[in-house]
Every structure is written in structure tokens, then in C-alpha cells.
């Protein structure tokens, strides 16, 4: 996070998600559950010039610090994103998102006959990350590869 962006819209407390590949900001808002009912002030910067990515998106959320589960979800969409936790206008903590080897309750198996999709079982889907680049995941239960896993994220 460079100082230019703090000058534009500095936040006092909250989270800044930086280095989001351009065009993904709105999908990330959806993943972390920021919608019309959200009470926080949220700033979204789109197509910001970036030496690292060419162009990038940035999200600033006031008065909310993201938890690890939310960071995992972001890693699915933006594996190089950085998270800045802001307290009293200072960067209190800087984190890189990282995709864990297994994820529970985040990506749904696309096999409709998989036990994890049976409502009566009252269970959460569980996936195994096979490779990170390219992203390839499979269902822990039925072993099927999940095609375009970003499209199978549970909101």
C-alpha cells in the first residue's frame, strides 16, 4: 500500500485489500458478504495503475477487520492480494492471503449426486487444493475435480 492511496481515502480503522487483479473487486465484495445491508463505509478503487499487476483493484472497508475464513475466500479469487489491518490510521498488521491445503464450507461440489450436496446430511462441503497455479481443487468426498472453482464459491 503506498501513501498516495492513503491520501485519497484514508480510513481510521478497518481493512484495506490491495493487489486485487483488476476487475475482481465486486466479486470479492460478494464473497466476503458486503452487500446493500452492509453498514460499514466501503471504498472501491478500480483499475488503479500498478507496477506489479499492470492495473489492480483496491477495497477499503471501515470499522471491520477480516477473519481468516474471509482471507481464505479472497485467496481463491486473488492469490496475490495483501490485507492491511488499519488501526488509528496506521497499518497495524500486513498479511498476504494464502490458500490452505483444504477448505471447508467455501466451495460447493458440482456433482449433484455427491453426499455433500444432500440437504438431509446437514454437512458442509470440503475441498482439497491440488494445485495453486493453475488453481485446481477436488471434492474431499466424491473425489471429483471442481471445474472453475471460483464459480462454485458459496456466498
Amino acid at each position, binding site marked *: 500500500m503506498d501513501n498516495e492511496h492513503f491520501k485519497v481515502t484514508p480510513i481510521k480503522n478497518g481493512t484495506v485489500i490491495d493487489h486485487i487483479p483488476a476487475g475482481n473487486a465486486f466479486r470479492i465484495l460478494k464473497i466476503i458478504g458486503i452487500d446493500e445491508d452492509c453498514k460499514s463505509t466501503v471504498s472501491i478503487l478500480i483499475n488503479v495503475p500498478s507496477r506489479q499487476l499492470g492495473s489492480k483493484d483496491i477495497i477499503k472497508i471501515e470499522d471491520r477487520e477480516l477473519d481468516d475464513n474471509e482471507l481464505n475466500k479472497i485467496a481463491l479469487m486473488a492469490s496475490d492480494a495483501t490485507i492491511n489491518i488499519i488501526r488509528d490510521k496506521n497499518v497495524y498488521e500486513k498479511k498476504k492471503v494464502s490458500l490452505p491445503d483444504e477448505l471447508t464450507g467455501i466451495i460447493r461440489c458440482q456433482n449433484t*449426486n455427491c*453426499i455433500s450436496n444432500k440437504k*438431509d446430511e446437514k454437512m458442509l462441503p470440503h475441498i482439497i487444493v491440488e494445485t495453486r497455479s493453475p488453481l485446481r481443487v477436488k471434492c474431499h*468426498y*466424491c*473425489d471429483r475435480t471442481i471445474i472453475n472453482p471460483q464459480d462454485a464459491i458459496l456466498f
Partner: protein
Amino acid sequence: MSNLFNRDIISIKDLSSGDIDLILSESEKLIDVAEGNRKLNYLSGRILATAFFEPSTRTRLSFETAMHRLGGSVIGFAESKSTSTSKGETLADTIRVLSTYSDAIVIRHPNEGSARLAADYSDKPVINAGDGASQHPTQTLLDLFTIKREFGKLENLKVGIIGDLKYGRTVHSLSYALSMFGIEILLSSPSSLTMPPDVMEYCKTKTKINDVKLDYLIEEADVVYVTRIQKERFPDEEEYQSVSGSYKITRSHLIKAKSHMIIMHPLPRVDEISTDVDNTLHARYFRQSFYGVPVRMAILNIVLGGDVDG
């Protein structure tokens, strides 16, 4: 003690080629016990739970026979209607309870992934006896055992698989195992029932696997493995009707087959192998079905820590 002691057997991919070799060699030693010519009590006092949420004849009864032949006992059910799942109990809860009553659980269930879920919730080893259209590893082990008994080896053979390659769980498990041993695979199926891309991709990394014409497959293969089109796996009746009866192996198909070629089938058969094939030198499906007993005896004995050396 084998490293398979107390292990779950959910997918053939959970087993190494060494694990498979061990199961096959132990199966060989148990044939006379499976035939009732010798008595053993390796599993005396041990209890197997058979949780069959879907109909089965051969798999369930051969597991039960295997346990009894080794001196053990069996509890279980053969349909979900007679269990608490019909009252809304989850599979996880049913398995938690069964694992407190028994030393191992054999499960068959209509949903893919159910055996893995059961293994996650059971303190005792879980053996997958078929989960939806996914995996059926003990069928594959008895298929491999049949091939090894007939040819004395698993290497340098060509296996042709005919039928429903999309929904047939036995052919998925079998293809994984054949590729593990580098056995060439020839496939022939209706165009709407081809092998899933996942399975093809995995097998291609380990062996040759190709779609071919039926006549070519029968001429070239050392083993012709025929499967039934399983009505119960089709999402709709129309799709089933479009492929029902689309292939049938008859005696006339076998004219150009190699003299040593054997025909296998996981059974039940409907009409995909004509009964006039039954009395040819090629037919092995009924013998194959019997091999389910010694192979499941070996699996239970190894997983439950019976006397492996016999």
C-alpha cells in the same frame, strides 16, 4: 502387521501396488477356505457391520460369507428403509453408532462420497462397497485377482472395457488399478456414456488408454470386461432409453478373438452378454463372482489384523 491394518479402503487410489499385491497373494492362500474345504477362525469374536443403503446380492453376500468363513460374525441391514435414516437420521450419525457396535463397516450407498464421509465419522475401518457412480474398490480387487489367476501375471496385457463407462463405478475403479500396473486399456461405449475426463486424464499419465471400435477391441484384448447399463444411475428415463440395448456380445462376436481371451462381467447381467457365450471357453464371469469371497476374506483379514501368514 500390514500397513493396511485398521485402514479404510474407500478408493482403489488409496492403495499402492504393493498393497494390492499383498491382498492378491493373501486371496490366493484362502481359496480352499472360501470353497469350504478348510476351516479357519482368524476373525473369531470379531463383528462386521454391513450397511447397505442400496440393493446388492453378490457384494453383500460375499462379504458376509467371507466374514463367516473366517470365524467372524455379521450385523447389518440390506436396505435403508429399515434404518433410522428413513426417520431423518444423517449418515454420519448412523455410522457413528455402527462403529460402536462393530470392528469394521462395509458400506454401500447411492450417493458419491458417502463412503469417505462414513470413514471420517467412524473409529473403525470402513470399506467402500460402492458409492453411487464413484468407486467400488473391492470389486476391482477381485477383478484383478481373476486376471492374475487366469494369466499368472498382470503385466503386458490388454484389457478392453465395454459398456457404460460414464456411470459404471466398477469401470472407474478398474481403470485406475489397471493403469497403476501399466496395463493397456481399450474402451468401447455408446457415445453418450464415455469415460469421465477425470478418469481418462489420470489413466493417461500411467498407461495407454484409447476409445476403439467394438470389433477391434474384441480382436485385440486379452480380457474383455463387459458392464451393464445401470438404469438406476441415469438422471432421466429418456437418456436411459436412448442407450438401452445398444450393445450385446454374442458368440458370433468371438470368432476373431484371441483363443486365450477371457470375458469378465461384474454381474448382474441383463442382456449385454448373450447366454450362448456362457458355455464358451472365454466366459469367466461366474468364476470371477466366486473370487469375491477369497478376495474379501483377504481384505477383512488384513484390515482387522487377523493371521496374515495363514
